[in-house]
């Protein structure tokens, strides 16, 4: 083998790998300093009433592999079809939940006769492609190719897609939507950059809609609201919440974390999370660090936090790094007692996968956005959308129960989003009375629909209006079950808190 050919081969390989990393870096912004924040939305909390803690637990079956087949209810032979393409990381539970949620939504819509356009019934069917969204090594072009294949090869007319935290991939997909001219309903990623693009260039990016979750700026607000409640409870010695003063923040180096950590997010708090925790809530933020997405050894970070006597670790993690982190946090020899872990820990919503993957070390880990057993939600955090009917009479309880029945596991947050996205799409097509993209876009913009995730409305930049989206904070307990402990809809209540042991 000649030296020249080896050089050429290695150079090509290095360039390809570096280009992939560079693409990821392009959308990352470094943490910058910002001014102190003076406004506050934290209110005083009233003492909660004493409510007995009795509840039933739901045993879970083993998770089967999701299907990728075309799904349809019993339809007449002459039925017309609308093809929904699902672009998701099918090799991970995150993407599997997106596909499962879409399939479930399609089954519900089809069982109600599908969508009626000018007297003709149209039924949904699903095709799926793997966008490698959870593979941090995969370049964003993989996600682009998946969407292109869905549209050009698989005949998808609408796309439901996303991942949990691969902002580079989502932005890359958004960049081709003006050429594909296909509506893309995004679930999973919270990056504000996508909807900022819609605001900046609506004619080009009008095809993009974020269905779930609320964007990163709102996530920052949710974090502050919960930690405010935690502070109140700890100061008053309520519900075994430990008294926490020293806080450490550990955030993935990804685009979705930037609006939470920096002043450029533009959300209601518009500040850095570290400064907000200090100035508004009175915590002492002694440690704050980003870490690369490929991190598997968190020992140096844990060591630094142990040295600084961190009592609460705020996590912003959306990929499998959280599993590594929790396993190491759970066994680290903390000299001053194990700190509480709370924050956005996306995979912590996987039930029971996260518990198994962390060998049970996830006990006491708190995360935003997990979907706890609906029996507990119904009893302690009843959803209140009086005056509005659920689309297809399908609420979160049915979403949860049907998901367990059909797929063996409760929906992940992405699954709840994709299920809601199907209802939103069906509703928009029905109102538009057309499959014409521009007409459906106009209809989508006027969406006001109660879905399993809550009331879906879109802002002018096609972002999810989070005003009526119930978000739960949930905690894993030592019995291997997850419990809701707080929701901003009921700010005076913290339930089922279990301190770390």
């Amino acid at each position, binding site marked *: *083998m*000649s*030296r020249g*050919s*080896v*050089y050429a*081969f*290695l*150079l090509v*390989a*290095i360039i390809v*790998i*570096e280009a992939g*990393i560079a693409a990821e870096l392009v959308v990352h912004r470094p943490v910058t300093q910002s001014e102190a924040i003076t406004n506050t939305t934290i209110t005083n909390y009233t003492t909660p009433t004493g409510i007995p803690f009795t509840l039933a637990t739901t045993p879970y079956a083993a*998770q*089967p*592999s*999701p299907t990728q087949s075309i799904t349809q209810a019993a339809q007449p032979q002459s039925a017309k079809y609308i093809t929904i393409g699902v672009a998701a990381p*099918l*090799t*991970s*539970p995150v*993407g*599997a939940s997106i596909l499962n949620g879409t399939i479930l939504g399609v089954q519900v819509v089809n069982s109600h006769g599908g969508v009626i356009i000018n007297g003709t019934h149209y039924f949904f069917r699903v095709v799926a492609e793997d966008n*490698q969204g959870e*593979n941090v*090594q*995969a370049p964003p072009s993989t996600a682009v190719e998946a969407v292109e294949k869905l549209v050009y090869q698989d005949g998808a007319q609408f796309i439901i897609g996303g991942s949990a935290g691969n902002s580079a991939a989502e932005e890359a997909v958004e960049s081709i939507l003006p050429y594909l001219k296909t509506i893309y309903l995004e679930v999973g990623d919270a990056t504000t950059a996508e909807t900022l693009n819609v605001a900046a260039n609506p004619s080009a990016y009008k095809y993009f809609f974020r269905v779930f979750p609320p964007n990163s700026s709102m996530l920052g607000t949710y974090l502050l609201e919960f930690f405010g409640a935690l502070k109140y409870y700890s100061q008053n010695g309520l519900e075994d919440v430990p008294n926490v003063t020293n806080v450490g923040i550990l955030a993935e*180096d990804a685009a979705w974390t930037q609006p939470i950590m920096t002043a450029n997010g533009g959300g209601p708090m518009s500040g850095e999370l570290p400064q907000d925790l200090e100035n508004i809530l009175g915590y002492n933020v002694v440690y704050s*660090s*980003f*870490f*690369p*997405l*490929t*991190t*598997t*050894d968190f*020992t*140096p*970070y*844990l*060591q630094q936090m*142990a040295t600084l006597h961190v009592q609460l670790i705020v996590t912003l993690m959306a990929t*499998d790094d959280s*599993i*590594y982190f929790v*396993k*190491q946090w*759970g*066994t*680290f*020899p903390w000299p001053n007692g194990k700190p509480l872990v709370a924050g956005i820990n996306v995979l912590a919503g*996987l039930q029971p*996968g*996260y518990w*198994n*993957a*962390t*060998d049970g070390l996830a006990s006491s880990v708190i995360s935003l956005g997990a979907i706890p057993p609906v029996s507990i939600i119904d009893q302690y955090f009843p959803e209140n959308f009086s005056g509005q009917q659920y689309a297809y009479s399908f609420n979160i309880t049915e979403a949860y129960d049907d998901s367990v029945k059909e797929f063996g596991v409760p929906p992940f947050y992405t699954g709840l989003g994709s299920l809601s996205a199907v209802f939103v799409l069906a509703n928009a097509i029905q109102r538009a009375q057309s499959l014409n993209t521009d007409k459906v876009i106009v209809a989508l913009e006027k969406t006001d629909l109660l879905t399993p995730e809550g009331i879906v409305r879109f802002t002018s930049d096609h972002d999810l209006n989070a005003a009526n989206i119930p978000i739960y904070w949930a905690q894993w307990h030592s019995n291997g079950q997850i419990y809701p402990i707080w929701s901003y809809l009921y700010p005076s209540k913290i339930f089922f808190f279990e301190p770390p042991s």
Partner: protein
Amino acid sequence: MMLGIGFNFMYTTSQFLNFAYGSIYTLVAYLAYYFLRISIGVWFSYLLAMTIGVLLSILIYHFAQPQRIGSLRSAAFTIASALLIEGIVEEFFGENYYSFPLKSYLAGYNRILYHTIGVPVQNQTLLAASLSSATLLGVWFLLYRTKLGYGFRALALDESQAELVGVNAKLMGFISAAVGGSLVSEASLLLSPSGVLYPDMGWVPLIEAFGVVIVGGLGSLRGTVIAALGVSLVYEVVFYLVSPVYSALVPLALAALTIALRPNGLYGRLK
């Protein structure tokens, strides 16, 4: 380091760049997990998984011998094999994140070390470090104290001359694939227990090993060892003094720098 040595070993002795290395790493981990779950015994599970890893490495080499099909086609075949293996793992094991079952005394951090010198080190990391050092000594012994090792080194120096003096290059190629397979299997069994299993888990170690090999020099095992230690040192310096975020770029940044400034690497001997 072990991955780098195995990767380099195969190249040194038979000019075989095996990009399926990472997938073999993944498959061995999953197989060991599966065998442990069906309770056929810890040692037997590890041995069986490792044997399959070695056989797979030999099989890939058999179809991708660079002397037979050319080096570019060989590398392309290994990449295709990597994707195939990954696909099979995904299909068979599904999408869940699996945690490798560990004996309780191996789980977590070594408290004795922590309480005596204040440095937290995971027990599994200590085991990996000690076993990989022993393996390194074993590889050195194989190369420098055995007839087989003389043959490998002769092939590394000049294949045609080595064949003239009776070294069976084809057989040595298969043996080097077996050695490489055993090294990657051992690395997988040592590192996987402290982490989580997912289908594309092999790419990160492969890329880091590739970076280390480039820095150390293709064709030089000494270079790989020194580069592994050096890259780790630079990684820690960047982590603590610059930013944890940039530390992830260290292996490939150093590799790119090496190619630009010293294409052969620290001790490499490209043909």
